[in-house]
Structure formats: structure tokens, C-alpha cells
């Protein structure tokens, strides 16, 4: 039976002030249950890193609350937040972020220093994880000698060593070739399914949508649910290219109507003489609510 591992409510985070104020996260609420794999996607600069930092207890929001495994982190001191991160959250980074001086096995065991029982209690589990992720033969290798896929699998083993309830992965396939990326996705998928952990993935990788339980779209600090097959196909009024309005970041409002563009160039041409292009399209250039399944 699944239970909520991560509960975020009405999160807000702003940077700057006055005219330079940016609402990186604006009223975001979110739940992730055990055994669930949730993807957050969105355009660059949409606030994904800020949001994932807040959800990973690395950054305090201006307002709102984050409850991880039943603990409201806004009530905790920095020291206790660090302890909670060490024991309850496993991180997987796009850049792998392995400690270069340590061997594969020591990297995996590193977070175990921060958990009850320490390294001694975690040795067997480290070996199991390395075996499961196909890294047994590389256990004594230094990170510099590993391939990208191997590095990311080490990072996943490190994230799992303290058996956290929540895994947060930031672009876990971003630096990998398609085969390695696919492997990593399946490992994360299995972690959610087989071990009942909550897995939150921030990514641009469209393949993640195929295995995720939920896809969340973050744009301008706002989060909204999106189904795997949700698309809103429209045409660029300038060049007539088909564009998915769900993920389009280039648009403009004209006479109460939103128009999407394939490029900045098209948007500029439209903005200069909208009548020229609208004359070609009497109605909004919407193709369909859903893509063909």
C-alpha cells in the first residue's frame, strides 16, 4: 500500500527584488507516494533546479511547506535537515558528482558514515548494490576510469546505500548515451516499483515519460500535471510548422489569443506585422487537443 513520502504545499521562492524580482517557484504543490515515479519537466529557466533543491531539503522556500516522510522540514534546524537528507533522501545528479579520490565502493559507502550503524553495517549492502548494478568488477576502480553509464550507476548505488524513502534524480540521463540512459531509467523505475521508494526525476529526456507514473510540467514557477499523451498541437502562424503548445516556450499574446512559434525569428516577424500572418489564419491555428495515440 502506497503512502505519501513527499508532500509539498504552496511553495514559493523568489530571487531579486523590485523590477529584477523572479518568481522561480510560485505556489507549487505536489505529492509523491512510495512506489511512484514522478517526472518534472519544463523549459530551461523554468525553476526546476530551484524546485528540486527545495524538495531535496537543500534550499528553504520563502513560503509553503515540505513534508518528507512525515517530517516538516521547515521546523528543523540546518543540522537536522542535513541528517534528514543523509538518511531519507538519495540524490542522483546529472554530473554524477562522484568523489574523485575514492574508489567505486568507497563512493557508494560514503553516505553510510552519516547513517546509524555507519559503514560497517552498510558493507554488505554496498556489495549487493554493486552486484545488482553490474559494478562488482569495478568496485576498486577510481571514478576517473569509469564510463558515464558506470558513473551514474555508482551514483545510484550511493543514493540507495542508506535505503532512503525518496530518490531525487536531476537529469540522470543528461550526460549519457541512449543505451546507458535507458539502463539508468530502468534502474530508477525498478527502484520505485520493486523497493517502493518514491522517485522524483527532473529531466528533459522524453523517454522518461514512457516509464513515469506522472509527468509534471513546470513553467515560470508554476507546476501542472500532464499526462504522457497530453499534447496540444498548433501551427506557427509564420512558418506553419506544427508545435506542441505544452512544451513550447516561444509564444506571444495578440488580441487575447496565444500564438506559438518555432523560433525567435518567427516570433519577431509576427510581432512586427501580425495582421500579415493572421490574414492567412482566420481562426486560432490549433490542430488538435490530443495527439493521435
Amino acid at each position, binding site marked *: 500500500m502506497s503512502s505519501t513520502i513527499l508532500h509539498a504545499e504552496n511553495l514559493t521562492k523568489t530571487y531579486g527584488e523590485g523590477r529584477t524580482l523572479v518568481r522561480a517557484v510560485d505556489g507549487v504543490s505536489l505529492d509523491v507516494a512510495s512506489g511512484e515515479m514522478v517526472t518534472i519537466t519544463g523549459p530551461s529557466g523554468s525553476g526546476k*533546479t530551484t524546485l528540486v533543491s527545495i524538495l531535496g531539503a*537543500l534550499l528553504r522556500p520563502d513560503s509553503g511547506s515540505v513534508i518528507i516522510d512525515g517530517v516538516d522540514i521547515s521546523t528543523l534546524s540546518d543540522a537536522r535537515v542535513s541528517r534528514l537528507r543523509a538518511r531519507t533522501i538519495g540524490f542522483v*545528479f*546529472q554530473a554524477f558528482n562522484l568523489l574523485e*579520490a575514492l574508489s567505486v565502493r568507497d563512493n557508494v559507502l560514503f*553516505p553510510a558514515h552519516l547513517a546509524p550503524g555507519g559503514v560497517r553495517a552498510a558493507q554488505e549492502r554496498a556489495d549487493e548494490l554493486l552486484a545488482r548494478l553490474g559494478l562488482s568488477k569495478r568496485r576498486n576502480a577510481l571514478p576517473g576510469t569509469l564510463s558515464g553509464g558506470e558513473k551514474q550507476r555508482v551514483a545510484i548505488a*550511493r543514493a540507495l546505500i542508506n535505503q532512503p524513502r525518496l530518490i531525487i534524480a536531476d537529469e540522470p540521463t543528461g550526460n549519457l548515451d541512449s543505451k546507458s540512459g535507458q539502463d539508468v531509467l530502468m534502474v530508477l523505475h525498478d527502484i520505485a516499483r520493486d523497493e517502493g521508494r518514491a522517485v522524483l526525476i527532473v529531466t528533459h529526456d522524453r523517454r522518461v515519460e514512457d516509464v513515469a507514473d506522472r509527468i509534471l510540467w513546470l513553467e515560470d514557477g508554476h507546476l501542472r500535471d500532464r499526462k504522457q499523451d497530453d499534447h496540444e498541437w498548433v501551427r506557427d502562424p509564420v512558418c506553419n510548422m506544427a508545435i506542441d503548445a505544452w512544451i513550447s516556450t516561444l509564444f506571444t499574446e495578440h488580441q487575447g489569443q496565444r500564438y506559438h512559434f518555432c523560433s525567435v525569428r518567427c516570433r519577431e516577424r509576427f510581432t512586427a506585422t501580425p495582421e500579415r500572418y493572421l490574414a492567412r489564419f482566420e481562426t486560432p491555428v490549433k490542430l488538435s487537443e490530443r495527439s493521435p495515440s
Partner: protein
Amino acid sequence: MLNWTYRELLAAPQQLLASVAAVAGAFALVLFFAGVFTGESRQIVALIDKTDADVWVMQKGVGNMHMTTSFLSDWKIDAVAAVDGVAKVTPILYLNSVIQAGGRSWFSYVVGIEQGDGRAGPWKSAAGARLPGPGQAIVPDIFASDAGLKIGDKVRIAGRDFTVAGFSADTFSMANSVSFVTLSDLADTMSSVGAVSYLLVDARPGVDPAVLAERIRTQVEKVNALTRQDFSRRDFSIAVQMGLEIIWMMTIIGGALAVLLTGFIIYSHISDRERELAVIKALGVRDRVIWAAILVQALVIGLLAYGLAVGLIYLAIPLTEALVPKVSLGMSGDSLIRTGGLAVVVSLIAAAIPVRRVLAVDPVTAFQQ
């Protein structure tokens, strides 16, 4: 965490070696200057230590030899010899003076010894006669080579010319040398009649020198008596005291240099590894644990540097003796402990320098590409 701390340091062994060598240079500087003072101070008490009398007897109120004058009436030689437990009494006359030869001058202890009695004479001969005869002087070999003296040349001591009869070894130091003439010549030079400066007392076998010194003090009028160890310790501490301010100044300069070097090394090390610090912070390691790791790294560098500096100095002692015989270099437990303490303090300060930088590392940056 400790594993990471050490592996981090050892990950770049050449960088570590260079860091340790640089800091060791600063500690070696401190140890070298302390070593010079220790060596010079040991030379100042060389006469006391090398003649190895059990008890030294001197004028009442006098407690040391360096820069001091002591006069005892010569009848006290018999009075001391009569004390139970005394095997032998050897009188010396002693003068702090300047010796001139070959247009050069040196400060020296001039020791007048009874003719033909080597008890208080030079403990090691380099060339020529071991003991002085009338009108003769035994001078340090280094003094002689500096002044270009040969046996048979003249030296001027306290306004009187003496003929160099021999050269002694281990009697020279930059601060103070020891030259020997006959007691009667020195008495004549000093216009001292019926007086000596110190009495070197040998105890009978089985007699405790401290007990004997106490007996002499109580049984012989107006004298002070000290065991050789006590007498030597007093002179040594006075000699060291004279150089203490310079030693401390050098310790502070060397320490400041070591702090700057270690601080720079640690700071650079942290700057190069900000991303890793961000990652370990993100993984849940607290700031104070990271700082403790940095402190351990600074201590490792500091203590390795200290060990290397000690090794270098012990290598420098025979080298200095061979290449610059005028310099007496010696290590004392005090200077080793002081510099070891300095290494710990340097490490603490150096580790404190990058604290703000460590605190400023934002774990969120671990998410950045």
C-alpha cells in the same frame, strides 16, 4: 569521512609533497635558528661539561660562570680539600676577555690552569701541545685557522702577548671560545695574588655530588658549591635566555610564514574542490564535519612538514659542522617541542582561514552542470 580526508590529500601526491616541503622550509628556519642558539649555548657550558668535575666551588653569591667574576682566597683550596668526601680539588683562574691575533679579535673565556695539570685543561687537542707552559696559550683550532695562526705565533690576551703552543678542538663558538694559559701567567696578567676563580672538585667514589656540594657550602666559609649538572644548567639557561627574544622573533616569523603557506595551500585545495564540498553537503555532511576534515588535512600537512623539518635539521647538523665549523648547531627538546606546538597552532590557524569559504559553499550547486 576520514577516509575521504586522507584520500583527498593523497590523490595529488606531488602537490602534497610540494606543500609539505614548503611548510617544512618555514619550520626548518625556526628550528635552525633555535639550533644555532642551542649549539652556541652548549658551547658556552662546554668547559663545565667537558671537564666533568663533580662539584664546582665559587665565591658566595655567584651561581654561574658566563659573564661572571668569581674570586676565592687560595687558602680555601685546602679548606675544600679537607671536606669529607673530596678526592681532589683543582683550582682555575678565569677571565672573560678578548683575544687578538692576525688583526682579528674574539671574545673568549681565558682559563688559567696549574702548569702540568690537565684536569681543567683542554679536553681535546687538535695540534701541538695539549697543555700550556709559561708564556704559552692553547687556542681553539677554528680561531687559529680564521686568524691564520701557526704554532709559535703570538696572540694577545688581556694586553699581554702569549705564544701559541697548541690548538684545541671543540672549544670554539661564535659567542664564546675557551683558551688556556697557565694559572700563574693569568694571575700575573690579572694582577691577582692569592686568589683563584673556581675550584673543580672530584668526589670520592660513592659520594653523592649533591651531598658533597651541601657539605662544602656549610663547612667552608663564604663559598657557593654546585654540582656540575646544576652549574651547567644555570649557565645554559642564562645563555639561552640571552637569545630568547631572537628565538621567539624567529619562531613568530617562521610561524607566520608557515601559517601563510599552509593557509594558502588549504585555501587553494578547497577552492579546487568546491563542487565536491557542495556534493558532500548535499549528501548530508554538516559544515562542522567538513571543517574538521579540513583541520585534519591541515594537521597532516603541518605535522608532516614538522617531521620533515626535524629530519632536515638533523641532516644539517653534521653538514654544518663540516662546511661551517664556526657555527655550533644543536637540537634541544625544548625547541623540538616548541616547534611541534607551533606546527599544531599553524595548522589550526590555517584551517580557520577558509572557514567562511566552506560555509559559503551552497549544496544546491551540486545540481549545476
